[in-house]
Every structure is written in structure tokens, then in C-alpha cells.
């Protein structure tokens, strides 16, 4: 499976500021995904990022709050904008193994733990 890294691993931010999280993969992948895991909760898909096109956002998530970039096949960023304490979560990126298809398996990065004060 692909090796995925995320930066930063954790951060403490002040409300009203923005943080950009980076996700780097050691091989070219078609689709990259961003998830949020609020404290003690499950994972919720924020958006899907396909290289060369606009990210597709899930219900409840908007581009103004969570802008995503996907400049190439190995890299993506997620920005959490105008943060509030409710944004305190773990943010994870994931990639599919191989081509985008029905049975693609997702592998996850180590996550970015964000605390907003």
C-alpha cells in the first residue's frame, strides 16, 4: 500500500485563524479523500479530490470553509478556515489503492490533530 504522510501532525490554533494541512503520497493516485474525526466520534467524509478538477464536497461541508487543492497526483491540501473550537478534530487524508473502482480500498495517513482555542 502507499505511504502517506501528513503535515502538521498536530497544531493548536486560535479561533478566527486558518490552518492548511498537507497530504503527501509516495506514488501517483487518482483520488484523495479528506475526513474529519471529531473527538470520540467516527470519521466523516469532507470531500473527494481528483487531480485536475474541483473537489466534490459532502453535505454539510462547503468550499469556503474547507478549501482543497490537488495540484498533482501525489499531493493535496485541506485548509480549515476561520476556525472555531467546534473545528477541533483529527483530520485524515486517504488514498485509493490503484484505479478508482467499485472495490477500491482506502489507506489512511496518520492524521492531523487540531485543537482550536
Amino acid at each position, binding site marked *: 500500500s502507499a505511504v502517506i504522510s501528513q503535515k502538521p501532525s498536530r497544531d493548536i490554533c486560535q479561533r478566527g485563524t486558518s490552518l492548511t494541512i498537507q497530504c503527501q503520497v509516495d506514488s501517483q493516485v487518482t483520488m484523495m479523500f479528506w475526513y474529519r474525526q471529531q473527538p470520540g466520534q467516527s470519521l*466523516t467524509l469532507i470531500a473527494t479530490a481528483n487531480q485536475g478538477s474541483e473537489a466534490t464536497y459532502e453535505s454539510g461541508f462547503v468550499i469556503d470553509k474547507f478549501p482543497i487543492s490537488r495540484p498533482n497526483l501525489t499531493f493535496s491540501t485541506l485548509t480549515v478556515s476561520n476556525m472555531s473550537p467546534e473545528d477541533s478534530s483529527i483530520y485524515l487524508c486517504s488514498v485509493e489503492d490503484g484505479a478508482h473502482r467499485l472495490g477500491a480500498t482506502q489507506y489512511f495517513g496518520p492524521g492531523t490533530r487540531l485543537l482550536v482555542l
Partner: protein
Amino acid sequence: AQTVTQSQPEMSVQEAETVTLSCTYDTSESNYYLFWYKQPPSRQMILVIRQEAYKQQNATENRFSVNFQKAAKSFSLKISDSQLGDTAMYFCAFGSYGKLTFGQGTILTVHP
């Protein structure tokens, strides 16, 4: 839309014993995949096992196996010979074309 339900918030088991984690799901799709992921205290999501819905044979991966009942929309995970390193949060997930829907998770603690 799919829903995934894990009805056991917490489970515990003695080392070397067997434990089964439950998962049910609801979908109108006929072709899909099901997954179990574990998330240890390090927070890294790790794939445990994967099941194709069109296969009747239950998936097995070393000490991990599933009991997949498609008609009942049930997908339980059995961990045999439990080890201390199995202590983690376990998530059941429904997958179709890259979209994963996760259950609420079950915290499993393995006691020595």
C-alpha cells in the same frame, strides 16, 4: 444513502480468547464492499479486512475473519487468539466507488 450501525460501544476480552464485533448496514445498492478498520491509540487507521458483497465466502486474514450475511445486512468481525496489540477502536465501513461510510466504532480492550 448508506447507514452503518455498530451497536457495541465497548467490548473487552481476555488475551488469547475470541471476540466478535457486530456491524449492520443498510443500503439499496447491490454491489459494494465492506471493511473493518482499526484505530489504535496512535490514531492511525489500519485496514483489518475487506469483503466483496458479491462473494458468499467469508474473508479471512490470519486471526481475523468475518461473518457476512448479505440478506441480513450483517458484517461481524471475529478476532481469534486476541493479543494485547489488538486493543483499539474498530470501525466497520461500507464502501462503493471510493466513498466510505463508517459506523460509530467499538472500543475493544484486550486484558492480560
